[in-house]
């Protein structure tokens, strides 16, 4: 197998939100183990950047995407309006999907327009562009449990091939019952990364990514490892931990059953 192709980009900003992880700034201490991980429920901030009408209609996936994306953009000191984006999620807005399926199985199938437009997988991408004014391209992806890896590859190819900064937004939210039992994502979790093709004053780390047959890294903390396994977007946590540790190292991220992503992390 020839698995030698590598893609290199620079991480300029990071956003993080999940159970017991209230942001990249505060989450680093948890990821490196200097503070204990306490997995209380994810707190989603109201999306202040959206116009009032859109804010009322926005579900958990929109709040999560905006919160993590804006944190990453702020860390990088950039304006989101000029950036292309990659959204990756296993399943979009779980609550909304359940509500639609329930109505369609009832005697009254007249779902509301808001329910319907929130049902598309690119809902968060649409709200993101409205909130930030970004008119550049956005790629909206799903790869089930491989969604983080698929999003990272797409964002890397944007940065490398199109020679542009881009923001990756990998976010998942839970389904309520009865879908929860079929797809038990326990809570909302998101990672956002601003990637750049060249090193800059904002660069936090250089990442060099290739496909690999090696197994994905596990996290030492039992509760964090449970989170990594349970939520597709959390497959990216070993990368964030490596950056938080401020050590050059190689991590392997979960991706497809047939291939994983090896990431060489070099601090800037």
């Amino acid at each position, binding site marked *: *197998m*020839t698995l030698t*192709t590598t*893609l290199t980009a620079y991480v300029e900003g990071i956003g993080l939100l999940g159970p017991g992880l209230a942001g990249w700034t505060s989450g680093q201490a948890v990821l490196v183990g200097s503070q204990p991980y306490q997995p209380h429920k994810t707190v989603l901030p109201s999306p202040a950047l959206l116009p009032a009408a*859109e804010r009322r*209609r926005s579900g958990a996936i929109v709040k999560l995407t905006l919160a993590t994306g804006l944190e990453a953009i702020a860390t990088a000191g950039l304006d989101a309006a000029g950036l292309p984006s990659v959204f990756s999620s*296993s399943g979009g807005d779980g609550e909304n999907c359940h509500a*639609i*399926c329930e109505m*369609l*199985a009832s005697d009254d*199938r*007249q*779902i*509301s*327009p808001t*329910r*319907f*437009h929130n049902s*598309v*997988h*690119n*809902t968060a*991408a*649409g*709200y993101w*562009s*409205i909130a*930030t004014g*970004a*008119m*550049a*391209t*956005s*790629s*909206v*992806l*799903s*790869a*089930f449990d491989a*969604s983080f890896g*698929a999003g990272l*590859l*797409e964002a*890397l*190819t*944007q940065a*490398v*091939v*199109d020679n542009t900064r881009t923001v990756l937004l990998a976010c998942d939210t839970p389904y309520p*019952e*009865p*879908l929860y*039992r*079929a*797809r038990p994502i326990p809570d909302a979790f998101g990672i956002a990364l601003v990637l750049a093709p060249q090193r800059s004053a904002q660069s936090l780390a250089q990442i060099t990514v290739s*496909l690999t047959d090696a197994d994905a890294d596990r996290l030492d903390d039992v509760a964090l490892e449970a989170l990594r396994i349970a939520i597709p977007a959390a497959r990216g946590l070993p990368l964030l931990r490596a950056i938080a540790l401020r050590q050059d190292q190689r991590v392997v991220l979960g991706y*497809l059953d*047939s*291939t994983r992503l090896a990431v060489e992390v070099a601090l800037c």
Partner: protein
Amino acid sequence: MNSLWLSHFTATSSIGLGLDQTLGALRQRRAGLAQCAFDTVDLATFVGEVAGVDAVQLPAHLADFDCRNNRLALLGLMQDGFAKAVRAAIAKYGAQRIGVFLGTSTSGILQTELAYRRRDPVSGALPADFIYRTTHNTFSVADFTRHYFGLTGPAVVVSSACSSSAKVFSSARRMMAAGLIDAAVVGGVDSLCLTTLYGFNSLGLISDQPCRPFDAQRNGLSIGEAAAFALLERTPEHPEKNLSADAVLLLGIGESSDAYHMSSPHPDGLGARMAMQDALKMAGLQPSEIDYINLHGTATQSNDAAEGKAVAAVFGPTTPCSSTKGATGHTLGAAGGVEAVICALALQHGLLPAGLNTRQLDPALDLDYVLDNREQPVARVLSNSFGFGGTNCSLIFGRAGNP
């Protein structure tokens, strides 16, 4: 960009299974729309349903993937020797060097809609035979396709509503340019379900007639279903010597976001205009070098008005254009793929397909809208796909040699 070669392609929709039937329907101006009799739907609307989808049997080892969307995917893969071409590409490049990039908007959601009718009356649980991962989940159709062929390279579903299977070409282009893969199975599969029928109805966007794109009296869309696939490979050096003249190449891609509204396009088609201009720029072409535009043309008031303004702004009033959704219906996440294949047929057969059901062109839209089939040499075409959330993608295809 370095052009990419669509070495094989196929489409299955309500106007036909595979290329011969699709071309025949276009030549005969035959639409696939009929009064909706799908499942228990009680809406007065027309749909483009593909006959025989539910008779398709998935291979036993992939039985977990069984749902209408994956049955339609397999029906599509069976046409025009496409599956054989993918197997030949595996022999040539290796299973890990071929990516899968498929567009869908609703994937196998119908399976969940049906399961919700069979919930346990006491516990509310879904039936035991319901399998979320391989049916409902958005990735299911790409996962089915990679397992069907034993592909082990990168795989993903692009799900940006009605631009999905146009944007797959862009993801595949970048990954091929980055050197991660040597070929890509791209396309789109979307199948009828209640979410989209009742959803578009809730927005007042469903027509009670076969849809009439760009007509003064247009009153909404007709939903269809389809599976379309293309095998993308790098264009060989000296294509004029190494490819036949009618080989179809992807020449340019433009993508943008409206940043305007979740379910209405920018009224002046600003995002659409940017997508078309970027595609021309990437292809290194002037607007006058495009021989035909396959419009998104959904037949809603707002889409056609915005798209018409955007096309006129970029191309002026003289570039022939039409929407083929009057024939196929709006196949949503499969539309970009189906219309890419229709563009490929236009290039190979010198046919500008007429827009069907359009009786009186909207006088506010100053365009050369094709109302009767035209037979003429076609060298380069552009295809538009726009979607909810303000997502826009334009693709430019051309022949390897002069027509």
